[in-house]
């Protein structure tokens, strides 16, 4: 039986890639962000996951607006990233796990989540940077399953739906017969807005409430519509839906192993959490 051993949620700002490439982890601007990760790496070294199921949103690398799935799951044996338009450094390819991917797709569709399956898929910074933060040598010791949520083009899936997706994913993983350890990641947010006269919007109070809810009241965000989430967290802050999916994959009761929150990296309030099932 596969087991979810924990969830890592983190921001995925593209400029993190530039900072990694330039070795700026100890630079005063970057240090408060990167300092969040050594405890996560120690934890990963301890729990030794076999697979990462990584929930994120694509930013126009794999999906264009010609076809925009609400939920999609990668089912490839390998995933590569690419130059995303501004010369982001590319990483080593990621190993997939097509058998587990198809198991998840089958289970989810059986539960009435009508997933788009992707046998070819590029992964963008929202996938690669959280992986690079967890494994800085970029020798990925895990297989990966990308789960993509549309946070780009409204109508977005509601937080309530995302939370339910997480629960369905958790049931699907629990029914995977292989004795494997699964780490969940949810990437994006927290509050930020890149576009419009409200560009630069950050909402620390909301972010901290949201992070607290991830521990003690996991359905809290589901009371908001996606438009309300945009109002509260910004047009790109709504990427927190990926955190909501990841949180849904853990049981009601969790233990917070570590968290970090820092304003700003680029235009973003960055958050990071490491949660374990409290069993």
């Amino acid at each position, binding site marked *: 039986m596969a087991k979810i051993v924990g969830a890592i949620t983190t921001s995925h700002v*593209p*400029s993190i890639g530039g900072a990694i490439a330039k070795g700026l982890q100890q630079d005063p601007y970057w240090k408060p962000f990167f300092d969040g990760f050594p405890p996560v790496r120690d934890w990963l070294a301890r729990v030794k996951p076999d697979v990462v199921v990584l929930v994120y949103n694509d*930013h*126009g*690398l794999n999906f*264009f*607006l*010609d076809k925009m799935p609400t939920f999609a799951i990668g089912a490839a044996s390998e995933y590569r990233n*690419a*130059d*995303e*338009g*501004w*010369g982001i450094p590319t990483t080593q390819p990621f190993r997939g796990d097509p058998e587990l991917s198809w198991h998840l797709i089958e289970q989810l569709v059986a539960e009435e989540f009508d997933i788009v399956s992707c046998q070819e898929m590029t992964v963008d910074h929202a996938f690669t940077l959280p992986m690079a933060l967890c494994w800085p040598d970029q020798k990925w010791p895990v297989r990966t399953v990308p789960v993509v949520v549309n946070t*780009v*083009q*409204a*109508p977005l899936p509601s937080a309530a739906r995302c939370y339910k997706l997480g629960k369905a994913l958790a049931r699907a993983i629990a029914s995977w017969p292989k004795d494997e350890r699964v780490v969940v990641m949810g990437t994006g947010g927290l509050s930020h*807005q*890149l*576009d*419009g*006269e*409200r*560009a*630069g*919007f*950050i*909402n*620390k109070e909301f972010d901290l409430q949201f992070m607290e809810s991830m521990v003690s009241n996991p359905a809290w965000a589901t009371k908001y519509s996606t*438009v309300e989430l*945009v*109002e509260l967290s910004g*047009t*790109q802050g709504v990427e927190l839906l990926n955190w909501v999916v990841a949180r849904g994959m853990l049981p009601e009761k969790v233990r917070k192993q570590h968290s970090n929150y*820092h*304003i*700003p990296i*680029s*235009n973003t*309030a960055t958050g990071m959490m490491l949660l374990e099932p409290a069993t």
Partner: protein
Amino acid sequence: MPNGKSRQPVPGTTIFDGEQARKGYALNKMCYSFNDAANRKAFVADEDAYCAKFGLNAQQREAIRSRNVLQLIEAGGNAYYLAKFAGIFGLDMQDIGAQQTGMTKDQFKAKLQAAAR
């Protein structure tokens, strides 16, 4: 409106919905093409020809010409795609934010820092 509510209820904010997606399709498609370095080079080499190839309308062409982000959004541009356009000129998100809010880059960075308090 189906539910009687405004499509765009958040001040200073254009939610990228179906209406924007339809309006901005050609513009975003061109920006999507900038994932490929060869396409960025082709744009820089002959901007007019490149925009014509994607069928930008006059409003979109003018917004691209002026490098004006608010105009690009008005013309249907989506932030994630426009970021690829901005990347051609080496602009980062604080440059973009400063331009949209009428601040200097330093003022905009100070605004972001102030949100930490």
